[in-house]
Structure formats: C-alpha cells, structure tokens
C-alpha cells in the first residue's frame, strides 16, 4: 500500500503525517508512506487545499486533517 501525504510542510501537514504514521504502525500494516512536498506533484492530483491524503493513487481527503478513525478505515480497506 502506498500512502502519500500532500503538503508543502506546514503544521497541519505534519499533524496529518503523524496521525497516518501512528495509525499504520498501531495496526501493524505494511505501508509505504511518502511525503509529497513538490508543488508540481501536489497539483497533479488536482488538490488545491492541503493537507491531502492519497492512498494507492486515490485522493481520500483534502483541505483538512483527517481523524485517526478515518485513516484506520482507509488503510484497512473498509472505505
């Protein structure tokens, strides 16, 4: 599973990354977590509001910090 966190590196982006990393390690899921800070790459997803979370190429949320429960659903494939 490839999880990309889009954001130029503000505090809201760091918080999102922290939650994703925590959730994934708590559930013991093998995932490749990558931060995307390059503006060109961020824009290629069509996202204007950061932070955004992309899992296996699909935008899961944008412009807000997701809750841990949401992230859990995404990575366990329940939504």
């Amino acid at each position, binding site marked *: 599973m490839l999880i990309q966190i889009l954001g*130029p590196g*503000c505090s809201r982006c760091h918080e999102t990354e922290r939650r994703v990393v925590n959730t994934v390690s708590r559930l013991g899921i093998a995932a490749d977590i990558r931060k995307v800070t390059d*503006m060109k790459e961020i*824009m290629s*997803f*069509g996202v*204007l509001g950061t932070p955004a979370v992309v899992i296996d190429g*699909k*935008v899961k949320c*944008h412009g807000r910090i997701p809750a841990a429960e949401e992230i859990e659903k995404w990575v366990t494939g329940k939504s």
Partner: protein
Amino acid sequence: MPDPLKLLADLLVYRVFRLHQGAHLADALNFFIYDVIKILLLLTAIIFVVAVIRSFFPPERTRQFLGRKRSWVGNILAALLGIVTPFCSCSAVPLFIGFLESGIPLGVTLSFLISSPTVNEVALVMLLGLFGLKVAGLYIASGVGIAIVAGIVLGRLKLERYVEEYVYQIKVGSADYVRPTFRQRATDAWAYTGEILRKVGPWVLVGVGVGALIHGYVPVNWLAKVAGRGNPFAVPIAVLIGVPLYSNAAGTIPIVQALTAKGVPIGTALALMMAVTALSLPEAIILRRVMKPRLLAVYFGVVALAIVFVGYLFNAVIR
C-alpha cells in the same frame, strides 16, 4: 435583562477577591474578566459555525465556479468567495497556481488572495465582541471593497509576466472531490475550533490585559494629540505598525479598542487592524515562490495604499 457575564465578573471581583468597587485595579480586573470570557465564548461559537459553513466551499469548487468569470464580476465574486473558502497561508501557493491554470485572470485571483486572509473569523469575533456590529460590518465591507478594487487595479497593470514561469507549466490533475459527511464536517469544525482557541487564547489574554491597563491608566488627551485627526501621518504609520503584527488579530484588536476609547479615530484603528490581517510577512515569503519580486511589491503596495485610503475615508466620514 441582567447580563449574566457582568454578574459573574462582579461576583468574582467584588465578592470573591473582595476588591473595592470604584478602585482602578478592581475595575480593570472586572473589565478584563468580563471581556476575556465574552470573547472566548464568542470565538468558540462563531469559529465552529464558520468552519461548518466553510466545509461546503472547498477551494476546488470555488476554482470551478470562478473559471468562466471575467473581470469586475469575477473580482466581486472572488472577493465574496474569499470570505467563505477555507484558507491557510500554506495553501496560498496551490490555490494561486490552480486558479491561474484554470484560466481565472490574475486580477481575479488576487482579489481572492486579498479578501481571504483579511476577512477572517478571529478578527470578526474580536471586532464583534469589542466594538459591536457596526464596526465589524464596516471591517468586512472595507475588506471586501479593498479586495475588489485592488484586484481590478492589479488586473489592469498587466503583471502576468511577473508570475514565476513554472506556474504556467504546471498541469492540474482532475480531482475527484471527496464529499465529507455532515458528521465529518462537524467533527472537523470542532477540532479546528479547538486548534484556533489554543493558538489565539493566550493572545486574547495578553491583548485584553494590555487593553485594560490602557483603559485604566493612559490619559485621554495625550493619545488624541499624538494619533488623532490633527496628525495626517497617523493612518500610514498605523499601517506600518500593523505589518509586523501579522495575523495576530486576537492580541491587537483589544489594544486598538482601548486606543479608540482614548481618542484614536476609528479610521486609523481600522487601518491598523486591516494591515495586521492583510499585510502578512510570512504570506509574502510563501507567495514569493510563485510571484517575482516586482509583482509581490506591487501587490502589497496596492493593498497598503487601499488600506490607507480606507483609513482616511472613515476618519473623514465617521465623527
């Protein structure tokens, strides 16, 4: 109807702390407690409501909506949408690129970039709580007005070549807009409210505290002489003072309110508060990534001039 907050402040100061009513310290403390509680309650309620409303206006949708609009109409809509579209300064760059890429004119994009941080919810609450409805309304109207006019002016100046070249090479992918459920909107809004309260809460305490000291100890005539109508430089100086106080509406507005009570005219006060929110140094640094220095300078210059103009206007009109 008796004001329950006033009763609470009276009870604390005159009964619990047993301070003598009418003494400088007691009255200043009473004023402090009353204002801090009022503002924190207002902040919680209004930021939550604003955050829920904003979740219905994601920037991706605003971009689509503005795409087919030209100058004038576009500037007006952009300035109004700037109020409701959620904005944080770190999103300024993707927003700017995304707007230009979809064919929205530079001037219209700038109208949005001016109104969005200027008319922000924290400033609104502070103005509502400390100055009342009239000044809060004036602030919003001037913020939107400045965004419209400055955007039109900047659009006419043909500054497109001062946008960094790479901006025009970026292709924005098509987003599948993820629609949150109402529960998610409410949870997000609540989390956001907490985040803002933690951030501005200490500044509310500092600002209202300094304001209370000014109320109690600064003589009226002195300030009226230094920063009153008689001094034609008061407005531009107020704008200059506002720049380094960037985005700290929570700490600044209580102090400005105390100053107006001591004779600083309302136009000068509004100019200072607008400079605080609209002319932010960190935002300039972020925007430097997409704007060449000349565009950045013209952009901030035009906005600063517009704020100075609004300051003089209100000083002349409101007596």
